[in-house]
């Protein structure tokens, strides 16, 4: 007559419970890690997308500069654009200081990656201007 020992059943149940609790603990820890990683990735993705669209978008940089140069105050200033592989350069040998104010105001108020620029006074009212914007 072999009856199941209730102590064995109790031990088996406790072992199953223990394994379940350990598995749950491990799963909870994993969830905490995955949640933290997700939040970190989300934050990073948001920053990368934002900064990339501001500084690394060639099409966007070219289009917005084109719009600036098409402004009535700048259209006749004779600003020369040269598009290179990873940058665009703007230059003008002589420009009225008011026109320069408009141009600098527009450029500096947008998120362009200015890698070089030079403004040199030629006379009381005119300056020369060179700028390189990268993406």
């Amino acid at each position, binding site marked *: *007559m072999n009856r199941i020992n209730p102590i064995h059943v109790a031990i088996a149940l406790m072992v199953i*419970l223990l394994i379940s609790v350990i598995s749950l603990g491990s799963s909870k820890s994993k*969830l905490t890690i995955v949640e933290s990683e997700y939040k970190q990735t989300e934050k990073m993705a948001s920053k990368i*997308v934002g900064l990339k669209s501001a500084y690394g978008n060639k099409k966007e940089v070219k289009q917005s500069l084109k719009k600036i140069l098409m402004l009535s105050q700048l259209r006749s200033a004779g600003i020369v654009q040269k598009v290179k592989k990873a940058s665009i350069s703007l230059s003008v040998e002589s420009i009225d200081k008011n026109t320069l104010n408009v141009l600098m105001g527009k450029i500096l108020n947008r998120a362009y990656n200015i890698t070089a620029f030079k403004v040199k006074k030629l006379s009381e009212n005119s300056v020369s201007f060179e700028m390189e914007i990268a993406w």
Partner: protein
Amino acid sequence: MFTKFNQKYKAMFDQKHKALFLDPNSPAVKVIDEKINIILSPSLYWVKKLSLPVKYTRDAKKLLPSIFEDSLPQGHYSYSVYKKGDDFFAFAYDDKVIIDTLKEKGIAFSDVASVYFAQSELFFMKGAFKINETQSIYVRDEIVVLLPCCWVEESGELNLDELSLSSHSIALAQFGHIVDNSSLYKIGAVVIALIILVLTEYFITSAKVDELTNLKEELFTKSKLQATMFQNEATLKKYEKVDTRQATLRAYIAMVLSFKLKPSESLVKMGFKNKVFSADFNLLSQQSIAGITKKLKSSKFKFKARSKNETWHLEMEL
């Protein structure tokens, strides 16, 4: 229905094993190496022949503890009942006493195939049968009873070899004295409920982990991120550096344009190359230079300045 079938089948199967009459006063059994059926002596159980207002044995079984309540000594009892005609034969027995008796007689619990009451197996006996040196069993009013040998004149020897066993066997609760069955079931139910709760929580958590992993993958695709976090961190660092540098450049330009110059003084050149911002001023007085230097120091910008001829050259590194 299935229980009845199982009991019948079990009884047929148990016929293969030898039957042994177990009485506390009978001598110890010789070493056995096969399974045996045990027939309990009336000294190992209490029996009552009853007429109860119930139809089924399962209903009658619920009444047994109260039926035996006043007639049993203090102890932990199990109950059994079967129906014969219109009457119920109710039994009360102490599992531990039976198990201890088996042990005393040298019978291993694992060698016991089934356990029967003498009442259910020997009720048909005619006359008395000697079971040990001092006692005999005898059937009176359908009840198998124990009698001192001297009460009966002739007692035959009990022969169980030809005995056909009934289906009224009992299962001994080997550990019934350690923990009450109902308490055990309650504890077991609570533990099982806990296991179910914990496992449910585990599956919910695992599902959340999978969902977040999928969302993370979607985020990578949607944001056009690079394959590894290391690469993305490098990209972010690069753009953050650009952003900081551009903000600083704009701050430098704003600072230089904010210097208050006298009419005779002028800013003649301003430029940025190789991460160095520079500005050239003409005809700056010492007072103006002092004012500008003070302003630059208070802004905590790092700068270098030098005068050459009439030009004051300012350099600020990004």
